[in-house]
């Protein structure tokens, strides 16, 4: 499954970059959300996939029974998901606000700060 996941993640990255390259700011943000998901999935995948062994210790035991899925990447991904949520909530409201101020959702029309 890891091999398949590798291609899945590649597809997610490609889709997100493609969306970010569009001129609409909305697509830009959707692309960012996808990108963040893709990266999370990548961390999760590269440290190995394990089926049906959540890292929980049953009552009375000192270790999970019968092995465990690596809990550390899970914790990292959880942190990354939450961070991603905060950042993307900001980004979503930013494009909303930017649209109100500029009255334009075409990124090509937002060049005044550069040139």
């Amino acid at each position: 499954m890891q091999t398949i996941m590798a291609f899945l993640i590649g597809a997610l990255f490609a889709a997100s970059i493609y969306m970010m390259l569009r001129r609409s700011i909305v697509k830009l943000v959707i692309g960012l959300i996808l990108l963040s998901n893709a990266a999370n999935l990548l961390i999760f995948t590269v440290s190995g996939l394990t089926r049906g062994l959540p890292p929980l210790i049953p009552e009375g035991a000192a270790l999970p029974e019968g092995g465990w899925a690596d809990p550390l990447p899970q914790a990292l991904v959880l942190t990354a998901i939450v961070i991603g949520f905060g950042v993307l909530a900001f980004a979503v409201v930013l494009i909303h606000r930017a649209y109100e101020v500029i009255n334009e959702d075409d990124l090509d029309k937002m060049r005044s700060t550069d040139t």
Partner: protein
Amino acid sequence: MSPEVALPVIIPFIAGALSLIFYKSHAAQRWIGVIGTGALLLASIVLLYNTYTQGILVMAMGNWPAPFGIVLVSDLLGAIMTVLAAIMGFGVALYSLPTISRDHEAFGYYPLTHLLLAGVCGAFLTGDVFNLYVWVEVLLVASFALLILGGERAQMEGAIKYVALNLLSSILLLVAVGLTYGLTGTLNMADLAVKLPQVEDQGMVTVVGMLYMVSFAIKAGAFPLFFWLPASYHTPPVAVSALFAGLLTKVGVYALFRFFTLLFNQDVDYTHEILLWMAGFSMITGVLGAAYHYEIRRILSFHIVSQIGYMIMGLALFTPLAIVGGVFYIMHHIIVKANLFLVAGAVYFMRGSYELKEIGGLWRTRPWLGLLFLIPALSLAGLPPLSGFFGKYIIIRAGVEAESWGIVAVALVVGLLTLYSMIKIWAEAFWKAQPEEHADRAAAFEKRLNDHSLMLMVIPILSLAAITVFIGLGAQPIYELADAAAEQLLDPSHYIRAVLGEAP
């Protein structure tokens, strides 16, 4: 146990949380702003002193020993960077009192700056790659929010590019961290320094190193990845610009220094050659951008790119002297660059514009400000006996010793062009007479300025100028510090031993 290692992170966190709790009281926020950053400054100086006298300090968070928990590590480079961040924080906090409008205060200016500082200090002190990602995000989100304070059109446009490109960089960092864990099963930097060379597939180690390089180079604003910087740095309130200019890109530079001395030193001929090209092009493109523009803050923004080139050049040459030069240059640059933005702000509050074509006459009316501009400006251009000269001298000497003539030539020519654009500001804003058609606005701004707020603006400018002069004239202690820092960087065994104990 060395609790002082964590204080530069904890203090701004507490200050930030407190200013949120008292978000209704502007007075309280201002006091917390000054006291919090002041305490941070004290704590970081203590940290630097202890690091200098006692060697690398390590603090295992939660008492979980490395490499299992997160450690905060203060080596000299980290401690130096922390002190610089604290100096900037304190100076900008003072400068903010008269220049940040009530509106901005109401929308979280002070908590945001505290948390920005926390993120920056955390990034400098952490000894864990994922934790570094977290700190980078903290400072990034704080900078997002600071960037849009005011909500003007230009800020929105700048912010979109800033947010999108920086997020891309963070994602690349996250991917690199994930791959690192997949390759080695560890996240602790010292542990990585031990385990990365043991990875069977050394090619993959270099590949992951390149991902880190790209990600940090985006953050550092190096060529060809700097676009977000000139697009946005000139848009927020000037105190914010100053803080950004001084600190944010330096996190990227710091990370490059950390990663490409401690972790990715296996294939120096390859990785550092790439860094060298990056450095050269950053210098040139940045300085040309500055030569093109006629708006003070845009000029200064492009100069950041160019100056980043010098720092990376120090790293890329990878000789002991070059690393010393890089560290020295970082120290000098943070102070000088932020100060130039502060001066630009003062100019704005006297003339009502950042456009060079609309302002003038300051040398006639305010010669002391002229002097306070010349000090950082000439220092940036690398003229002696100011701090910038010694930074540049060390780097160029390292380049000559390494017989890297190409980069030496670039560094020298770029120095001249830097001078050219600094002098452009000088000749237009200070020497030229105030253009008639904008005289009314200038007069209106002059009238609004009172002595009290002027003084609060000048104190940080003056202090930073004094530091610039001191780094120049008293370069010996600064050099010794940079030398000791470089020695630690070039011999990672110190770092590894300090974090992992005697037998790694």
